[in-house]
């Protein structure tokens, strides 16, 4: 497997970390406080870029699943698995930050509105994706089932996006932002996008290496020189029976 240059990798992660720290400083020191909601609105600069990158990761799962169904290459399955992990983490962040914001703004941790419900369903769909994977032993069968599931699970993404526009919901559709607020929001897209690409890449490479190790482990063992147990018939029908 082709190795990523560790110097490049180190620079990439350090830059991402530095941009995240700058982003946090911008949120709490540079960006003005919103008049109606107060300081709790500052959650928006994390909540929205992570939500957009959740959709991006869902798209990666979808494309990789279609890729597997088309080409039947294990690489696509590893990519879908990696992106699904990121979806679960990111969707959890979107739900938790949204709940904290909701507690401060609406006085309740949770409301069963279309946007929130479809977001919860999205998180659950990808949690199930990760849960069913280890339960299927055959790698080809697992990849096939997960690819079909990955395509079907993606159907929830347009529902999450459109629910707030098509159905009555307390979740805001758009927020008016001052120039300083807009700059902070745009800035946050840089580290979050870098983080998403970095995490999917790292997880993808790990999945490939783990699969390579498992292939070696599953290779047939050389013929043992231990004597055949007494009473075992000489017929070839018993070969390989455990």
């Amino acid at each position, binding site marked *: 497997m082709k190795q990523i240059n560790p110097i490049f990798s180190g620079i990439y992660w350090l830059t991402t970390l530095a941009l995240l720290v700058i982003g946090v400083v911008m949120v709490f020191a540079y960006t003005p406080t919103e008049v109606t909601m107060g*300081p709790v609105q500052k*959650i928006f600069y994390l909540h929205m870029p992570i939500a957009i990158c959740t959709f991006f990761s869902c798209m990666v799962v979808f494309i990789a699943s279609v890729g597997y169904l088309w080409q039947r290459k294990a690489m696509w399955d590893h990519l879908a698995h990696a992106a699904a992990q990121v979806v679960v983490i990111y969707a959890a*962040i979107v739900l*938790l930050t949204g709940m904290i914001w909701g507690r401060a703004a609406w006085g309740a941790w949770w409301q069963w509105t279309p946007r929130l419900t479809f977001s919860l369903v999205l998180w659950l769909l990808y949690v199930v994706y990760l849960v069913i994977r280890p339960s299927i032993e055959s790698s080809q069968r697992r990849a096939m089932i997960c690819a079909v599931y990955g395509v079907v699970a993606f159907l929830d993404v347009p529902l999450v996006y459109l629910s707030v526009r098509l159905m009555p919901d307390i979740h805001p559709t758009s927020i008016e932002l001052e120039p300083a607020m807009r700059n902070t929001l745009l800035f946050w897209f840089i580290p979050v996008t870098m983080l998403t690409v970095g*995490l999917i890449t790292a*997880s993808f490479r*790990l999945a490939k290496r783990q699969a390579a*190790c498992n292939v070696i*482990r599953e290779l047939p063992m050389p013929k043992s020189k231990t004597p055949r147990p007494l009473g075992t018939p000489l017929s070839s029908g018993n070969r390989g029976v455990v």
Partner: protein
Amino acid sequence: MNSLNYAIGAYVVGLGLIIGYAAWLWLASIAVTKREKRQSGQERR
């Protein structure tokens, strides 16, 4: 609770989950490296 505390709490939770996942990936990567070394040693033998 102060509204600012909610905002700080949200950043702690969000960035904490990301850092936790990145740390898990890193540890898993170390474990795979060890396994690869062990397997390559077995193959040589």
